[in-house]
Structure formats: C-alpha cells, structure tokens
C-alpha cells in the first residue's frame, strides 16, 4: 500500500534532440495516468500578425524564418498559395525545380533527424558524437547524405538555411548546366549509400507498439506527393487545400503556445509514416522492392517505423532529383511575371515533418490582409499526447521514473517535433500518489 501511495516528482529540465521548447506533465495516481500534457512553450513569434501589410514579394523571405530546418517548405507553400491566387502558371522548368529544391530539404532534414536526433536512442547513446564512436561509418554516411541535401538546396537557394532563391512566379536564378552535372554525379553516388541506410534503419530493433490512428498526407495522381497535390486521409477523405478549414480545426490549450489541430474531433498523424502509409504505391519500383525486402508491412501502425520511413523518403528524394535533373537546360527565364490581385488563397505542401498549410487574404496591391499558417507539429501535438498515453501503458507505469522519461522522449522523437523556436526544454514532472 505504501508503495502504491508513494508520491514521486521528477524534474527533467530539458528534452534533448528535438527542435523546440516543450515540457511533459505526467501524473500517475494509483497506477493510472490521471494527467498527461505535452506543453510547448515556444515563445510566440507572431508571424501571422507581422505578415499583415507586407507585399507578396517579401513573403517567401519572411516565412522562411519560421523554421531554420525546413525553410523551403514555408517558402514553397507561400509561393504556391499566392501563385494560385494570382493565376500564375509556372513554367515546366520552375515546376520541376521546385520539387528538386524541396527534395534537397527532405534529404537534409531527414538525415539530420535520423542520425543526430533519433538514432542515438536506439543504441543507448546520448548524442551523435557518442553514436559516432560505436557506428562511425553509419554516422559519417548520414552526415554525407545530410551535406548532399544541403548542397542541393544551395544550388537553387544559394544557402540551405533561409535560402534566397524562391520568388512568386518561379526562382530568382537558374543553376548552370555544369553545376547540375556535378550534383547529378553526387546524387548517383549517394543512391547505394541511401539504400544501405534503409537496410541499416530496418535492422534497428524497435518496440512493437501498434496503435490505431488516422493518417493525413497529400496525394498526387502520379507522384509521391511533396510540393503539390490534394489532401488525403486514411479514412478516404480527399479534398483540395482550400477545403482544409472545413475538415480540420485548431484550438488553443492553455498549456501550449502551439495550437492543437483535430480532424473529426480526433487527433491525427502527419509526417513521413503517414505519407508512406498513404502513398507507398507511388514509390518507384526499385524502392518498393527494397522496402519489401526489409519486411516492413504497410500501412504500419507503429510510430517507431518513422525512422525507417524517413530513410525511404531520402532514397525517394534522391531518385526524384536525379529524374527531374535528367536533360537539364537553363531556361530563358527562371520566373514568369506576376500581377497581384485581391482575394483569398490556400496552399499546402509536405514539409519534412508533415502537412503544412497556409492561407492568405491579399489586397489589390498584393499586400497581406491576413495570414494563417498551420505547421505540422501543431497537427501532430494531440496525436503525440495520445501516443504517449497508450505507449506508456504498454511500457508499464511501474517502470522506474528514469525509464519512463527515456521512453517518453523516444516516443516524442518519432514525430521529430519541430517546435522551431526556443530552447528544447522538456520539463517532465512525474507525480505519483
């Protein structure tokens, strides 16, 4: 009895290896979870407010600053929404290069997450520096792939953090044929490395933790959706970006500065595993075969397969970049002229961490009247809480506090939450009574 009524409070000041500031409140009474809240206290940065009054020409450079890890996602989504409103038809070159540019971000962000943030968990290491001591070749391979993603972003954006290449209507500049030739060599050389990465990722032992949840991801009739497509869900929903608001709701909980999203009043999953579950039929045959050989059965209901899903998407992104750069020519102009008009437009793309949705109301001069941005992490926030609740029960609430904390962190890292602003504080308080 005294054991049951024991009251324990743990302060774990920081959750490491996530992008952002958050805390977890966990209260266990008599062997039951009575409170579980993921608190994100990213300082509010008010992007939606200070975009008001800004010209469409400034938006890509401003929204990039929301996230240093996935700036292309923000730039491409904003540009897509505004191009839709202004009735701009991108040139085939610009359309293809948007996807290539975006592939660079997937490669960079996924490799960073796999090697620097997530993998150390599965090898009992606290950082990539420790991991490099026991798996030096694998870590070096990961860092090389990450660097290649950055290089691909540099080509079109001149730098990979807050790149400066995208403009509404296309790109500011086009890389030379020589530079594209060089990167193609490197992309080709990386294919076997990415294949080895998939085999390595598939070989990492993960907990069996099947859960039921709705997956939401963009869908495209031909391609594995990245930079364009409609929004789909595993329950059959299929809508355009403009209808997002009719199906998805956001609410603010006092314990977080990220808004919580829900779909039919339920949490849902966005991100690599949601995409792979919905879109694996769109993978190139070679990747499908490789994936089948790993034994992964899709759709997967185990979030611990997220790391493998990221590895698969790295290979996909390399394939896509190579395919689209085949026969590359410098266009007459990398952009088409744009004439702004008043109205409302929505846009969406698949950021590395999942669906990213923007909505802009613009005036006749092309200045923002109002803006709304729904990032992937706020969409996943309710799902993370639900997952923690279920996986902690499976894991066993009687485990020592330190083991509980480590398991929570591991679960949270599956989602690669990009809280993108602030210090990565996860203060976890466990109270047991």
């Amino acid at each position: 009895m005294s054991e049951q009524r024991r009251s324990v409070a743990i302060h774990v000041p920081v959750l490491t290896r996530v992008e952002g500031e958050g805390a977890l409140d966990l209260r266990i009474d008599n062997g039951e979870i009575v409170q579980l809240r993921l608190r994100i206290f990213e300082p509010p940065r008010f992007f939606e407010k200070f975009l008001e009054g800004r010209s469409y020409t400034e938006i890509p450079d401003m929204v990039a600053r929301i996230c240093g890890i996935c700036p292309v996602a923000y730039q491409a989504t904003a540009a897509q929404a505004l191009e839709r409103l202004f009735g701009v038809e991108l040139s085939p070159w610009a359309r293809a290069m948007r996807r290539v540019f975006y592939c660079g971000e997937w490669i960079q962000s996924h490799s960073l997450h796999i090697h620097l943030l997530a993998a150390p968990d599965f090898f009992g290491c606290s950082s990539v520096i420790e991991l490099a001591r026991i798996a030096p070749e694998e870590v070096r391979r990961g860092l090389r792939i990450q660097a290649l993603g950055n290089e691909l972003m540099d080509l079109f954006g001149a730098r990979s953090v807050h790149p400066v290449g995208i403009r509404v209507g296309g790109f500011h500049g086009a890389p030379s044929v020589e530079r594209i030739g060089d990167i193609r060599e490197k992309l080709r050389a990386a294919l076997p490395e990415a294949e080895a990465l998939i085999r390595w990722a598939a070989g990492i032992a993960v907990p069996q933790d099947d859960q039921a949840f709705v997956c939401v991801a963009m869908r495209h009739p031909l391609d594995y959706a990245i930079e364009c497509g409609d929004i789909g869900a595993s329950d059959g929903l299929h809508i355009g970006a403009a209808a997002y608001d009719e199906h998805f709701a956001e609410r603010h909980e006092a314990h977080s500065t990220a808004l919580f999203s829900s779909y039919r009043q339920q949490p849902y999953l966005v991100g690599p595993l949601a995409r792979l579950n919905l879109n694996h039929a769109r993978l190139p045959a070679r990747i499908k075969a490789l994936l089948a050989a790993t034994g992964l059965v899709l759709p997967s209901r185990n979030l611990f397969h997220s790391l493998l899903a990221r590895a698969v998407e790295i290979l996909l992104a390399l394939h896509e970049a190579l395919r689209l750069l085949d026969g590359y020519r410098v266009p007459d102009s990398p952009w088409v002229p744009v004439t702004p008009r008043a109205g409302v437009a929505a846009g969406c793309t698949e950021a590395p961490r999942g669906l990213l949705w923007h909505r802009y109301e613009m005036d006749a001069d092309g200045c923002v009247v109002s803006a709304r941005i729904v990032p992937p992490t706020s969409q996943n926030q309710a799902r993370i809480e639900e997952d923690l609740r279920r996986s902690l029960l499976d894991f066993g609430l009687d485990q020592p506090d330190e083991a509980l904390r480590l398991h929570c962190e591991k679960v949270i890292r599956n989602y690669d939450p990009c809280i993108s602003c602030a210090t990565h504080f996860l203060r976890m308080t466990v109270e047991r009574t």
Partner: protein
Amino acid sequence: MRAPTRPRVAVHKFSSCDGCQLAFLNLGEDLLALAERVELVHFAEAGPLDPDAEVDLAFVEGSVSTPADLERIQRIRRHSRMLIAIGACATAGGIQALRNGADGAQWIAQIYGRPDAVASLERSTPISSHVAVDFELWGCPVSGPQILAVVNSLLLGAAPRDDADKVCTECKRRNFACVMVSRGIPCMGPVTRAGCGALCPGLGRDCYGCYGPAENANTDALAAQFGRQGLDPPAIARRFRSINSQAPAFLAAADKARMKRDE
C-alpha cells in the same frame, strides 16, 4: 604544448528559428572534429545537456522575448567566460522584433484562444540589451564557416575578425554586376554588413539586409535612391523594417521614412 583540458563550450537557444544552431549541426565531419577539440558541455539540440555548467565559450542564439528569458540570460552570463551572440535574433532581436511597438497583447488575443496563458514580453530584444556580450556574429543565419572562424580565433586566443564592411564590397570582389545600377532593382547591399558572400545579388536579386547594418551605413542616401527608383515611403520603411528592424541604423531609417509618409 597542449592545454591540460579542452575548452568547454555551450550552445544556448532563446527565441529563434533554430537556423543558427544549424551552422553547427550542418558542419558534417567538422562537427565530429570540433567535438574532439572542445568539450561540448551544453547543446540541447545535439544532446549534451548542462545549461548551468561553467564554460569557456557560450554561443547564444535567439532573442530575449519571455519573462523567463530575462533570468536565464543572466545565469548564462555568470557561468560563461566569453559570451558570443550569433545571428540576427541574438544581435538585433530578430524578425520577431517586428512586434516591438505593436500592440502585443492584442496580437496574442488574435492568435491564441487562451491569451492569459501565453507568456511573452512586450518587446523582443538582443542579448546585448541584457548582459555584456564579448562578440557579436551578425547574419540571418550565420554560416558554418563563420562559426568555425570564430571558434578557431578564440581557441588561438585571438580576437575574431569583425567584418562590418558592406555587401557591395563582396559584389565587387566576386565580380557580380550591380543589380541596382544594371537592373534598377532597389538593393539593401549599400547599407548591409558583409559576410554572406553577396548571395542575393549573385542570383540577380536584391539584398534584403539579413546581415544587419554595416558600419557607417548611409541609410539616408539609400532611402533617397529607393525613392528615385519608385518606392513610396511605406515601401522604403518596410525595407528597413525586416529581419533586423531593431538594429539602430535600420530602426532610425524606417522611422524617417515613416515620418515622410506622415508629412
């Protein structure tokens, strides 16, 4: 002679996009090499965690924007022999400083359903507004080579090089045609600090000032030039009110343009 212990280094983060920490995380093999040369005692995003450890070098990303930040930056200063502010947020308050002067409470109410639960200061401010800063590395974002250059200088006991010259000088060095002269594009290069390598003019577009003001920036002359190129006073003010809006030279230039509008 080798120093008996490796220098101890911390990387701290305040309100920001994480992009300047990426200058470390994107170093690739150099990150592993750096981890051998220094002891990374605190760098939450990379794993090591010890925010209150005594360190030789503390890199600080982000701006001070919440009540808790005020106390935390003092603690970091007390525990750090040298404190280096990296990036536009840490040196000028960042893009989120665009809220300074706006009605912050009203903004919170418009975005968040439970405004009472959101802790935020009225203003987003640079690190130097709160504690002594030993070196500022400007840029949004700072780059890996810039960071490594600072680390290398400090490890050798030398003062890091502070390049406060203008982006124009980088264009000249790289032989880029001037976008303002040759294409009539209003460019912030003449008043913006060098360090990026003139990336934007290299793509044929305007510099938008993400490295902050250069030394002796003649913002009056540039604002007049923007006017001749057809920008109206609000548009001129917006050019200065962007990534580094609270840097004194840009703040003054934006205010002047606004006063012109009100005349």
